[in-house]
């Protein structure tokens, strides 16, 4: 479980996040939604340790990440898998080399065992027989799936996904969403997804937090997101004419 307690972050004079407290449960897909520039990407970077908060604590299973030393943080990071918005695959390495990289770096197992694990992960994301391809030879959806394979190769306890559907067609988005959901439940991972794709939220979101201008505006599950009377959340969720008409008809 990951728990954020009263997190605040500023860059210079600009306040980005203010007093955010959230709890993310294992085995569930936890979604952080919000408009562009609302601070959700910064919140994710704080959680994975790329930035440190000005105030507050980030607890991984009760262990405050902020107060850990460099080596202890490194240990926590080995339990984290992350899928980046642009996949962030290493351009100079093949698919196989990308996925095996964390294993080669940290696993004491032999290369043959590591290779078995890589093949298992690639098969799990539906990309067997792509081992020797380079990222430049892959489509956007395939890159995301390689990113997921690399993120789960070390059996992480926590999976972070930064806008996993950005730049993908609707069908591929659904495939990626389903894959993330399945992996979360299969391995009991605490998954946190940063998104503004409402289809994704409604398809796979278990717990949802809405960030508005740097503070937590709303928190709940997907059953209540459509019926909430929170004005700001409603404006965000029903931003398109299509969804507004759908809501009005269903009422």
């Amino acid at each position: 479980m990951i728990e954020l307690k009263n997190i605040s972050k500023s860059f210079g004079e600009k306040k980005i996040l203010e007093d955010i407290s959230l709890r993310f449960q294992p085995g569930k897909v936890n979604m952080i939604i919000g408009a562009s520039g609302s601070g959700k990407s910064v919140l994710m970077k704080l959680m994975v340790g790329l930035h440190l908060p000005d105030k507050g604590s980030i607890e991984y299973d009760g262990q405050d990440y902020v107060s850990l030393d460099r080596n202890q943080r490194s240990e926590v990071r080995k339990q984290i898998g992350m899928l980046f918005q642009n996949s962030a695959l290493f351009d100079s390495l093949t698919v196989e080399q990308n996925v095996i990289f964390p294993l080669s770096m940290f696993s004491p197992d032999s290369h043959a065992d590591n290779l078995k694990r890589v093949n298992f992960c690639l098969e799990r994301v539906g990309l067997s027989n792509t081992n020797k391809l380079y990222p430049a030879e892959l489509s956007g959806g395939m890159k995301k799936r390689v990113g997921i394979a690399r993120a789960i190769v070390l059996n992480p306890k926590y999976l972070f996904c930064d806008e996993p559907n950005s730049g993908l067609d609707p069908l591929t988005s659904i495939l990626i969403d389903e894959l993330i959901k399945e992996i979360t439940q299969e391995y009991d991972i605490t998954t946190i997804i940063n998104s503004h794709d409402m289809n994704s939220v409604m398809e796979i979101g278990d717990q949802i937090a809405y960030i508005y201008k740097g503070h937590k505006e709303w928190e709940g599950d997907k059953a209540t997101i459509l019926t909430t009377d929170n004005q700001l959340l409603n404006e965000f969720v029903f931003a398109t004419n299509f969804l507004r008409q759908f809501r009005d008809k269903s009422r």
Partner: protein
Amino acid sequence: MRFFFHFGRYLLLLKQLFKRPENYRMYWDELFRQMVAIGVSSLGIVIIISVFMGAVTTVQTAYQLISGLVAKTVIGAIVSDSSILELGPTITSLVLAGKIGSSIASEIGTMRVTEQIDALEIMGVNAPGYLISPKILAAVITIPMLIVLSITLSIGGGIFVGDLTGILSAQQFIEGARSSFLPYNIFFSLTKAFTFAFIISSVSAYQGYYTSGGSLEVGQSSTKAVVYSCILILLSDYLLAQLML
């Protein structure tokens, strides 16, 4: 003020290179990859510039020494000493700053803007250690080798052109070169080679590592890497000459 900010950040980045590697074998493999990328791939350009450097210096020295009172062997002495002291280490390093410096800065800069460095850090890898230290080490190992090769080829180019054009025979050239040869000059030349190798690789890596933005900024970092490396090479060239000669 801005200079102190960058200098401080540069030193802090260098400090991170001395952390214990997560996996020595991975760093070792990366070192060899970088030795190929930095050293082997620069062989062609170094061979071409070195031969022409020696050849041109021979022709121009002969042009400036048209006098029956000066022995032709002096040309060999001047060309060989110039190649050892200045042409080999400095000119080769300036060319390598353009080739290797821009490559290091753009590679690391692209990794930064495409979040590949973030990916490494989230995995728990010391990104500066893994990305930069093998490059610096590879540069410090291979660039002095390239410079020794450059000096040899520059002298060789001088001998070849001198003999071919009838300026002086190969024997006269070698006689002149041997008469003025000081082993200390080799030591001085190698000191410059190590210093320049460190400057090229570390300054370029620094520029790449702190790139922010997109492809435009990667290009700017690459340009800065070459410009600052060249300026620092010339500055340290002067300081080393002042201190050691």
